[in-house]
């Protein structure tokens, strides 16, 4: 037993030591392991970091390479695109050149066949318009036909191509001579353009090859814009109706030929191209009455190029009834109402409200010209406490004055200056300066606004089913703030106000007055960006 105990004790001792030793070893080992672990961790971390760094580097390199590749690709694409664009441009230019050459050939052969002069002198009334131009203005007006069916662009282009040689006085550009400006056949093909700009945008008169007319289309509109030196409203209306006639025929409509429409296959006559002022001038000396400066409607100017147009649609039959009730003509009623409204608005000042009403001379002098042949009468609305009836009476009296003697005096006075030899030989540059200043001083300064009534449109009966209405827009005035254009077709009379200023009290008061008189007024505005957008 003792031996066993002793051995047990020895064993315990030895074992205890061993345990202690083992523990120590374990600790050391653990430490070592920890150290190793730490080392390995560090190593791993380092390796990882290195790997990461390498990866990053590689990624960066890859990115750079990719970017380079992309850039190269982009460059290649860019150059390819450029090449393609250049090719397209070249092809387009070549096409345009070929088209232009073909157009030139075809039109010059037509002109030769029809014996049309390749250039025209500007008519007597038209000479003032090129020098009167300003930086953002020249005298352009627009006549629009609002169609019932949607407009087909391709057909319209065809119609324009076919109709244009019939009207050589419209297919022209403005050239500058030593003594006078003149018109020459336009070398460029007339483009039919979409209605995207404000109405009556000025023509670039410095471009001596540019057309001086525009054919504009929209979904349901065909519009014709014309520089006033080419023709007046009546002449332009003949062109537009001939164009519409051709267009409708090309769309498959049957339209009976009528006197009001010129056939595109007819030869242009010398009567259509003549300057009727020179034809009807005589030596009678009748003095025109001296005029004072007129009252001006003032307001805040719109940005150059912007025109506010308010279009009103009225019933002709109802207006006629109102006019009959006032014992006057329709034009007298509408002009008097306008004069009355402006007169009421005018608070102070001695200057009279003067409405300038153009007069078509074709009917009175049996002229068939498609160029300018119109005169005007300026009607003063002045007096104390005038009523609408007084204004109507003023207009009636003034319109009664219009007879052939009065108009002859106007023609003679207009032509007298142009036919003077000393004026003829003044170089154009000086003449332009004089005419420009004359227009500034004596032109629009003697009128408050222009009130142009184109009257009833003479068109074939078939047009009644194809056209809803016509509109006349006189565009911006040079110096006046507003202008008014009227035209009627079937039972629709359309009054268009064009304004250079933001204020529209005149329009508001005018249409409110017409509504008060019993007319039904339907209002449209070209400023959908202000009065309502979709």
């Amino acid at each position, binding site marked *: 037993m003792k031996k066993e105990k002793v051995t047990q004790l020895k064993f315990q001792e030895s074992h205890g030591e061993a345990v202690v030793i083992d523990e120590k070893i374990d600790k050391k080992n653990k430490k070592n392991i920890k150290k190793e672990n730490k080392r390995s961790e560090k190593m791993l971390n380092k390796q990882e970091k290195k790997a990461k760094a390498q990866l990053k580097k590689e990624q960066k390199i890859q990115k750079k390479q990719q970017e380079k590749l992309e850039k190269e690709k982009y460059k290649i694409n860019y150059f390819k695109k450029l090449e393609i664009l250049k090719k397209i441009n070249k092809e387009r230019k070549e096409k345009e050149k070929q088209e232009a050459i073909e157009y030139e050939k075809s039109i010059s052969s037509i002109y030769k066949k029809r014996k049309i002069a390749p250039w025209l002198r500007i008519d007597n009334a038209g000479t003032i318009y090129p020098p009167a131009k300003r930086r953002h203005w020249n005298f352009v007006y627009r006549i629009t036909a609002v169609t019932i069916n949607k407009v087909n662009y391709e057909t319209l282009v065809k119609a324009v191509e076919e109709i244009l040689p019939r009207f050589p006085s419209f297919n022209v550009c403005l050239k500058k001579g030593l003594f006078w400006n003149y018109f020459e056949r336009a070398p460029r093909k007339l483009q039919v353009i979409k209605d995207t700009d404000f109405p009556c945008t000025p023509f670039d008169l410095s471009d001596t090859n540019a057309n001086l007319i525009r054919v504009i289309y929209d979904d349901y509109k065909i519009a014709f814009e014309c520089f006033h030196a080419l023709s007046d409203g009546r002449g332009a209306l003949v062109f537009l109706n001939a164009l519409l006639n051709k267009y409708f025929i090309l769309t498959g409509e049957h339209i009976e030929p009528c006197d009001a429409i010129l056939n595109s296959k007819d030869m242009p006559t010398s009567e259509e191209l003549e300057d009727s002022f020179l034809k009807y001038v005589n030596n009678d000396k009748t003095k025109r009455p001296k005029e004072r400066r007129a009252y001006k409607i003032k307001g805040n100017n719109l940005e150059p190029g912007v025109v506010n147009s308010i279009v009103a649609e009225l019933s002709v039959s109802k207006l006629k009834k109102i006019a009959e009730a006032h014992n006057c003509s329709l034009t007298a009623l509408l002009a008097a109402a306008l004069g009355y409204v402006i007169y009421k608005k005018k608070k102070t000042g001695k200057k009279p409200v003067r409405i300038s009403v153009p007069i078509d001379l074709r009917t009175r002098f049996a002229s068939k010209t498609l160029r300018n042949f119109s005169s005007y009468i300026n009607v003063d609305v002045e007096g104390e406490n005038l009523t609408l009836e007084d204004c109507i009476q003023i207009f009636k009296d003034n319109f009664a004055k219009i007879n052939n003697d009065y108009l002859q005096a106007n023609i003679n006075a207009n032509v007298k200056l142009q036919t003077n030899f000393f004026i003829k030989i003044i170089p154009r540059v000086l003449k332009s300066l004089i005419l420009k200043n004359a227009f500034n001083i004596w032109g629009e300064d003697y009128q408050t606004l222009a009130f142009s009534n184109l009257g009833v449109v003479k068109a074939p009966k078939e047009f009644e089913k194809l056209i809803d209405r016509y509109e006349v827009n006189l565009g911006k005035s040079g110096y006046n703030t507003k202008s008014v254009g009227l035209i009627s077709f079937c039972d629709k009379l359309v009054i268009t106000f064009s304004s250079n200023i933001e204020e529209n009290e005149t329009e508001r008061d005018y249409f409110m007055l017409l*509504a008060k008189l019993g007319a039904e007024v*339907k*209002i*449209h505005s070209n400023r959908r960006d202000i009065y309502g*957008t979709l």
Partner: protein
Amino acid sequence: MAHYRKCSHCNVDVSSDLSNCPLCGKYVLNDEKNEEIEKNKYSFPIYSFNEIYRAKWVNIIRTLFWIAGAICLIINLIFKTKPYYFPYVITALVMISAVFVTPFSKKQSYVKNITKSSVIISLFLIFIDAYDYFTMGTTFGWALSYSAPMILSATVLAAAIICIVSRRHEVDMIKSVGWFTIYSVIYFLVVLFAFPELALWPSLVFMSVATGWFLLLQVIKRNLLWKELRKNLHI
């Protein structure tokens, strides 16, 4: 068919594409009925203002251009120099505007403006020549007798070559040569009688070149030349 809404204030019917009456500005839609603007068949398009903004910027740049000239003039009048330098600046601005800026802003061809441009440049040089003579007493005539006729002769040559080579500019260039011929004769006579002390041979060269080319074109393109002259000189 077009639809309309009543404006109770003006007693007129307003087109359905408008939310406000264009005469009085009153709101014409009925919110209780949830009315909305309808594009009617005959609506006006919403116009593009791009051209208007472009014109506005051109105006601003043009104004700045002239303001620069005005500032130069004012500064020169305050801080006086002998001679005044503002005439150089202003005439240069006029020349740059007429020769480079205006054709660019109006998208015109520089070839077409070759006559006008060369005449303006020659006048500009003659002005500098005269100004230097009157203010600093330099010898007069370097521009009048040498530079201007040389520039003009070169332009005549260019115009005549373009006229023969290019069909596109044929008419314009033939006109240019015609104008230059008239101008060269006047120029020569002015130098001959008004400035007899100056060298005459460059003006003579100018006149000879212009008239020579005119006569050559008269042979080559006689019909065109006379047609153009008849149109340009009609009284």
